[in-house]
């Protein structure tokens, strides 16, 4: 089984890219992670994670059009790749295995 090196934060960024499918760029990703992920994200951390994800081949980027709000700066859109998708699924399955093996007594079911 291929080893996927995916940090906790990187995984979340990757998930966000998947969720925002087609509309994933700096600002939107930041907002998505902050709301759905319930955590604070700095632009720097996000950008670094995106760079790393791209290097690993989990996402690919493309340029968007220039818009007035961004004083003429283009957007960089990210898309998840098939490889990235398999990485996410791998992570998910590993986690499920643990959850499945968890005895019921321990769960604090409310």
């Amino acid at each position, binding site marked *: 089984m291929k080893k996927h090196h995916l940090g906790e934060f990187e995984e979340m960024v990757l998930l966000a890219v998947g969720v925002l499918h087609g509309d994933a760029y*700096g600002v939107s990703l930041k907002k998505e992670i902050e709301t759905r992920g319930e955590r604070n994200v700095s632009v720097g951390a996000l950008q670094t994670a995106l*760079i790393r994800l791209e290097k690993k081949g989990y996402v690919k980027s493309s340029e968007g059009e220039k818009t007035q709000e961004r004083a003429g*700066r283009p957007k960089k859109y990210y898309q998840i790749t098939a490889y990235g998708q398999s990485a996410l699924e791998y992570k998910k399955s590993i986690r499920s295995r643990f959850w499945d093996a968890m005895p019921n007594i321990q769960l604090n079911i409310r």
Partner: protein
Amino acid sequence: MNQPEPPKYLLRFFKWFCKPELHSFIEGDLIEMFQERVESQGQRMADWFFIWDVLLLFRPDIIRPFKIFKIETNYMFKQNLTLSWRLIRGNKGYAFVNIAGLTMGMTVAILIGLWIWNELSFDAYFENRDKLAQVMVNQTHEGITYTASSIQVPLGNALKEGFPSDLGQMALSSFKRNFMVSNGHQKLKSSGLWVGTDFPSMFSLKLLSGSIKSLENPTSVLISESLANSLFGSQDLDHSVIRIDNRFDVELAGVYEDFPKNTSFHETKILLPWKNKENFLRNQSDWTDHCCQLFVQLDGRANIDILNEKIKNIPTAHIEQWKEEIMLHPLNKLYLFNQFENGRATGGRVDFVLLFGITGVFVLLLACINFMNLATVRSEERGKEVGIRKTLGSARIQIVFQFLSESLLYAFLSLIASIMIAWVALPFFNQLAQTDITLPTDQPVFWILSFLFALFTGLIAASYPAFYLSSFKPIKVLRNTVHAKTSSPLLRKLLVTTQFVVSITLILGTLLVFRQVQYAKNRVTGFDRDKLITVDISTPELRKNLDVIKHDLRQRGLISDMAYSSQSPSHFTNNNSLNWKGKDPNFTMFFRNVGVSPDYGETIGWDLIGGRDFRLSGDSTSMIINESTAEILGFDNPLGEIVEWRGKNFTITGIVKDMLTQSPYEPTEASFFVTDDFMTKIIIRLPSNISDHDALSAIGQVFESHDTGAPFDYQFVDQEYAKKYDYEERIGNLAAIFAFLAIFISGLGLFGLASYVAKQRNREIGIRKILGASVSNLWILLTEEFVRLVTIAAIIAVPFASLLMNDWLSQYTYRTSITWEIFAVTIVSVLFITIVIVGIQAIKVAVANPIKVIRSH
């Protein structure tokens, strides 16, 4: 539309560090977020968040690589070095001058640094150095306090019993004296000491055999490794028996490593136990008899100042004639602070160390200034090169880098050269300075310091050209409009002037030192030191045979005269007090007492100015005094007066002219001569009709034929005395070398500078020539600027140097005067050198064909 904008400077900052390929996208994100925040939270918060965001973007993945052209930097290194190397080869003259100057400066710095380190670490060989001290005595008489290291024997017990908690170990010690040491076949004269039992452990002797407590046995001795090797060929004990002075035997109980050169006990080869019955000193109980030294070791927590207060009055009660106190002088100050004023250590050798340190720094500074100057000059010449490089697209930092690397290359080459030269020069230096210094190539500190220094110099020297030149606009440079100055900028003038101020001061100082030594040497001696030798009466056999030997030598015409004395006329060590009629009971004065045989006066050739010389016999109560003594006694006619010394009455029967036997820089001391004393030396005047060498070898044979129990050993009185100039002469020699170097370095600098300026102005010169100026006119024009600089330097240097010189001279009572001749000679010589150096360059330009020169522009 008035859209709020994020802080501009931050945007610029971000643009500066961000990777170009990421920049616009991230910037866009930042701006978008900023706009949103402005709407929801206001401008202020938006700004703060913006700042926060930018700062947090300062991360490795986002920061651009700072090696601008990544591949090219490696290439650049090599290229720069190659270029620098080619430039050196192409301009050998300039490169050589530059490197030579800096090398000399560095060598000087290295040598001085090592010497200073050596001086400062004197006695560092002793582990307990920081706890050891020597007891000094302060004798106050008529308001002046004299400090000396000779103390009285009873002091030892007084301190031991009185202060057991503050003072741990202590040891009395005799002054250095020569012992005749024999193993049965061979006899060697060795310097040694009678020392207390604690001495070896106090001074942490490194023993090669035997125990450190050996001296507890009063018949055991410790000898040094070198003596052991000479006597026994090994350091094994075998408890051999050693005969001392042909008089008594001791047992060898241990061998210690020789004391290194920079220790107080250097050359002490044998240590004998104080308690031995042959040590006459040990029975002394007279508090006025100062005949030995005392070393103490402070207990861990003892504070030396508090202790000094407690102990200082110990001897006071025992001595009525003058006020005497003692004080502890710590070992780590003993060597450097060997001068005292009114009972406190004020300086001494440490002043010289400081002086040399400052001089070294200055000479180094000179060299660095030179280096910078020449580098600057050279780089202006390369302004064109800079211009071209820039048009070809060099970033400014690359040009800076190039100059820096060139300068660093020079600096490191100089460093290597200077270390090699220092290594070669060290033996000569050691001879000159009487030291034993070696290059500390095994100490990392040395290498680190040297490396840092070269780095520092290279960077500083390159700073001006690198930054100034690389900022040129290429067009300006190519059009040659940048450097149209006809005179050097202020900075350069300042540098040259400083160089000459230092050089002139050094030269003046050197001349003064030599003058002072010469002055002292020219002092009237009062007797004739020529062809005079002293021989120690070191064994009882010799003493028995004195008359026979004298008779024998006389018969063979090997001596001109022979006499005996208790001391050598090259230095009187004893001193005592006298009593006479009419002496003020509160008056205390010490006189040098010298025991002599009746023919002493004849032998040394003193000048009897009153009364008569000693009769050959029956004169045991007669005393001859010198002029200074006569003055102090105060009699109108001292002849016939009675004087009491050591409980015995003497009649003054003669007065001699003062003789110069002590320091050449101090006034002569009151001395007196009697025949009733114990003689320890033979004084011989060699005959004038035979060469000294022949006479001495023949005399030696005579001595040995009479079974004296010791090899014939002698000292020349004039040589012994000359040692008193030794320190000053050495200083003078060192100063002369520095002065020479300083002038040389300054001259080099001047040479480089002059050639540059001359070249600069060759167009101007050409025009002037065409307009009718003569060669001499032009020459004056060119040299004038430099002559002015040197004159200014002289004007600054003279008062400054005068101050220093007066200060130095004031330590000598007998001193030469600072006459105008010293200044005149120096200034004239320096001006002469300047004119020659600059003149050569000036002539070259002045004589050049004007047409050619103008055409080249």
